[in-house]
């Protein structure tokens, strides 16, 4: 039986952590784009669209991420689409991220005073023109800290994709544990690696919050 040094373990975990990072970034970018569309629907003047997007948000906020991943992973083959753990993970995390970001951003949009809507409306601007030139630029500065803060949730969320066999940090930890029989050491290192990814982001989010508040 081969021997594993702590360095071997750490090295392999770091290799796997790259996939955690890639998955997080992809989910965050795709989820951000989808979230913007959901947001536009959520605050649009059309009542049916607002209701639909609200339902979308409630669905993803009201069910466990684990279940969402299962559904995406098993629903694709049912519809006759071949899928990999990688695709399912990206799709599920994108949907999850979009719902949360849309809701965070809705709060930011609603923090823009009503007078801004009325003034731009009075200048004959359409909804999209109002959003693009008046509302979103103002919502943006309020949105940055909670958005960065939420990225931490996305990183931690990627751990759940290990359940469908996607090899990222957590899954690699399980595999290494099975080979080394040192669960405490391995999962301890896994935890430290997650912390190393998340902690700087949450510190950064806090700092942004302070500076953007002072600037106003």
């Amino acid at each position, binding site marked *: 039986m081969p021997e594993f040094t702590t360095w071997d373990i750490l090295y392999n975990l770091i290799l796997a952590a790259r996939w955690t990072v890639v998955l997080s970034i992809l989910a965050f970018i795709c989820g951000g784009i989808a979230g913007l569309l959901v947001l536009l629907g959520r605050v649009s003047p059309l009542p049916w669209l607002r209701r639909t997007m609200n339902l979308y948000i409630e669905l993803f906020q009201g069910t466990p991420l684990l279940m969402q991943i299962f559904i995406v992973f098993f629903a694709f083959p049912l519809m006759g689409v071949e899928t990999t753990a990688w695709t399912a993970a990206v799709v599920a995390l994108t949907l999850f991220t979009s719902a949360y970001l849309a809701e965070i951003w809705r709060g930011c949009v609603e923090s823009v005073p009503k007078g*801004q809507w009325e003034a731009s409306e*009075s200048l*004959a*601007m359409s909804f999209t023109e109002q959003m693009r030139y*008046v509302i979103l630029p103002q919502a943006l500065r309020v949105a940055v800290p909670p958005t960065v803060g939420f990225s931490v949730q996305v990183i931690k969320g990627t751990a759940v994709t290990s359940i469908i066999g996607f090899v990222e940090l957590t899954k690699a930890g399980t595999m290494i544990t099975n080979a080394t029989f040192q669960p405490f050491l391995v999962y301890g290192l896994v935890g430290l690696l997650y912390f190393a990814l998340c902690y700087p982001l949450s510190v950064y989010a806090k700092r942004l919050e302070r500076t953007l508040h002072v600037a106003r």
Partner: protein
Amino acid sequence: MSLVKLTGIHKSYGDNEVLKGIDLKVNEGQVVALIGRSGSGKSTLLRTINGLERINQGSIEVDGACVDPGQSDLRALRLKVGMVFQQFNLFPHLTAGQNVMLAPVVVKKQSKADVRTIAEEALAKVGLADKFDAYPDQLSGGQQQRVAIARSLAMKPRVMLCDEITSALDPELVNEVLAVVRKLAEEGMTLLLVTHEMRFAREVCDTLVFMHKGRIAEQGAPEEVFTKPATPELAQFIGMVTER
């Protein structure tokens, strides 16, 4: 022919009927002040004229653009109607010049160079030619309100609505804004103002409209309305405002 024609306007919030059948005609170049107690419906009436408040019944016609509860092309209406608000509502992320330029560029698709000239003229007209690059939070309340007037002017509206535009200002800043309004009136701009500045209304407006409980109780030339109120409500209102 009237520029603004309101016919049988009804407006309710739930069971609370705030406008109970308003008919009003405003001719080109006319300067009309809406007066009355708070809650009489004057601000609501003003806000229906550019579609910020939906009406339940009646019709609004401004220079051919027509709105009623059934069909509403608010964009056509809003291109003809400018509005200035009590709280200025300047866009805080844009400079004074950008505030004025935004709508002509985005909505009317005019070229930036043309709009720049229009914006400079509009700011000059309100006496703020040198504040083109200042942000709203670098301006006093009176200056902000004058930028808001310039922003509205740059869209070349046929009629301007002013909703208590001096009420949020410190007393010493009221006059600079009123001076701009007076100038607009003299240049023949059609104006509808909701105001508590009775002296100003009396001097500048050619018509006073007194609203009471969602109806137009009285209207006429200022001197007439002030000196010979026909209803006890108006007499009481005048008594109240002149005592102050």
